[in-house]
């Protein structure tokens, strides 16, 4: 497979005081690939994507995005490189209408900076319609929307911006069952549009239906990597439990594990 990596992270180390949150993590995402980043609480999932999005600076290691090398990023830089972070409700302005939230930070303006409001409303409507989110007019303030609808608005922001990589940090937490299904549908839409995504979740049953590849983190290290096609959700669940207990992948799955440690 000659697929290109849109993002590569090499030997990322991050310390918080005496605590080593990431102990030399290698991680990559291919073009048009949905990666499920799973692991227990404190495994370092959020820390890893926060480094990728430029919220934290790594202590060691390097990041390669679309062939360019970086020691560290800033959210602004990451955004310019086509990376969008979707956080549980936290990247929306609640008092502002849907269309403004969709275009937040990348407003369409004339050359003097005046907003092209009509155009933005039209485009916001189109991108929301692609996600079947037409229940509410685009000038509804976001505070009136349910959690799942809000995730839809954030996804539509990523689609409108032509983001290449969408990071979904626990997007299904605190959502009702029906809404989880909708969010998964939005992720499928990303895949259809040729985007890549990193999907972080505790719940492997939320991640399983939409991802291509799993990366399992444990205590700041990558311990395993599997293609979804090789595993059933039950297999994955067994592996996760084994890792949580012993820190190791069960022997019978070891040959499917794509991740090989450099030294024994």
């Amino acid at each position, binding site marked *: 497979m000659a697929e290109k990596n849109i993002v590569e992270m090499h030997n990322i180390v991050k310390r918080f005081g005496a605590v080593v949150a990431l102990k030399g993590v290698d991680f990559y995402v291919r073009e048009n690939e949905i990666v499920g980043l799973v692991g227990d609480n404190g495994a370092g999932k959020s820390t890893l994507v926060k480094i990728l*999005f430029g919220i934290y600076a790594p202590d060691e290691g390097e990041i390669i995005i679309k062939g360019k090398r970086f020691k560290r990023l800033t*959210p*602004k830089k990451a*955004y*310019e490189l086509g990376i969008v*972070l979707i*956080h549980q409700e*936290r*990247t*929306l*302005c*609640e*008092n*502002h209408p849907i269309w*403004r939230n969709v275009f*937040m*930070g*990348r*407003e369409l*303006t004339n050359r003097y*900076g*005046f*907003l092209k*409001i009509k155009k933005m409303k039209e485009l916001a409507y189109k991108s929301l319609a692609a996600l079947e989110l037409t*229940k*509410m*007019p685009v*000038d*509804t303030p976001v*505070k*009136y*929307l*349910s*959690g*799942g*609808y809000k995730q839809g608005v954030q996804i539509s922001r990523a689609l409108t911006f032509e983001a290449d990589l969408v990071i979904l940090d626990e997007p299904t937490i605190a959502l*009702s069952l*029906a*809404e989880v299904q909708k969010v998964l549908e939005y992720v499928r839409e990303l895949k259809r549009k040729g985007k890549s995504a990193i999907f972080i979740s505790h719940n492997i049953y939320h991640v399983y239906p939409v991802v291509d590849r799993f990366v399992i983190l444990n205590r700041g290290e990558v311990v395993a990597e599997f293609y979804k096609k090789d595993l059933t959700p039950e297999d994955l669940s067994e592996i996760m439990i084994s890792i949580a207990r012993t820190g190791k992948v069960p022997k019978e799955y070891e040959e499917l594990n794509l991740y090989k440690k450099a030294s024994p």
Partner: protein
Amino acid sequence: MADIYKMHGIKKIFYEFKLQFVITIIFLMIWLAFYLLNPPAFSNTFTYTSIMGVAPFTIIPAISLTLIIIAGEIDLSFASVMALGPLVMALTWQAFGEPTPLGILLGLLAGLGAGLLNGILITKLGIPSLIATIGTLFLWRGVVLVVTEGFSIPLGEFRNTLIYNVFVGRVYGVPVQFFWAIVLAIIFWIILNRHKFGAYIYYIGDNRTAARMVGINVDRVLIIAYAIHGMVAAFAGILDSLEMATFWPALGDIYMLKSIASVVIGGTPVTGGIGTIYGTFLGGMILEFIEMGVLASGVSGFWIRLVHGVVIIIALAAQGVIRKGELARIRIMRLLTT
């Protein structure tokens, strides 16, 4: 409990601009009350031109302060910057012996610089805006007092010059400074609602983390907002000193709380994220109407503060009731959109 964002026409406008309606109604009620108390005074155009003559000194700094408060910050130092600007102007005019536009320009630049300093202290050094601007409030007032040694600077000799009439002249009896207030209100409304910069101000006040995450340069936006506010405050101070034909070192002190009150009465909460220029403008007009009305109705001037207090509390209570009602609707709407 129908979905208001599917409504059309008057009904939708009413729901969307509830706060503006409330402030307008309070304004009209106060007007009516004073009219009934003293019909001759409030049918006399002189009363209105007097209000138009003094209201801009409260309203103009309040207009730019609205930006700061929407962004979730505060500024107190503008009260001293309102003296710093005209001091620089008065000194320049004295030095040249004539009312040169350069004096106005230097005065505005002094305000701009004071605003920049606020912005840098708050964003680059991370000092909370309340504390930082208490510091600069004292600093600039101190500079003014040290330079003037507490004495006023008379500007009467420059009266009836062109530059005077451009800023504080009279057009058919209407004070020109009131037109300046209206023009600035329109400009700031356009910036807030139709320009990228205004959108960023709203986003920073609503959700600063989100603003950073989408790549908005929060520090730069805040520094620019403070710089604009400093310049506008200096402008208001210049108008005031020209209107009074004197620069006096305490200029601006009385406007600090009045301008902040105008913003808050106008429906811009100190928590930021929302707010309107229209509200601020009417908020300032309400305070000035009360001042003029109390004096015109013949009771002691000591009543002014009391009535101000009552009206501020009523306005805030009305806003509180509206926001509570909104919370109930938010809950219902969230269920409807799942």
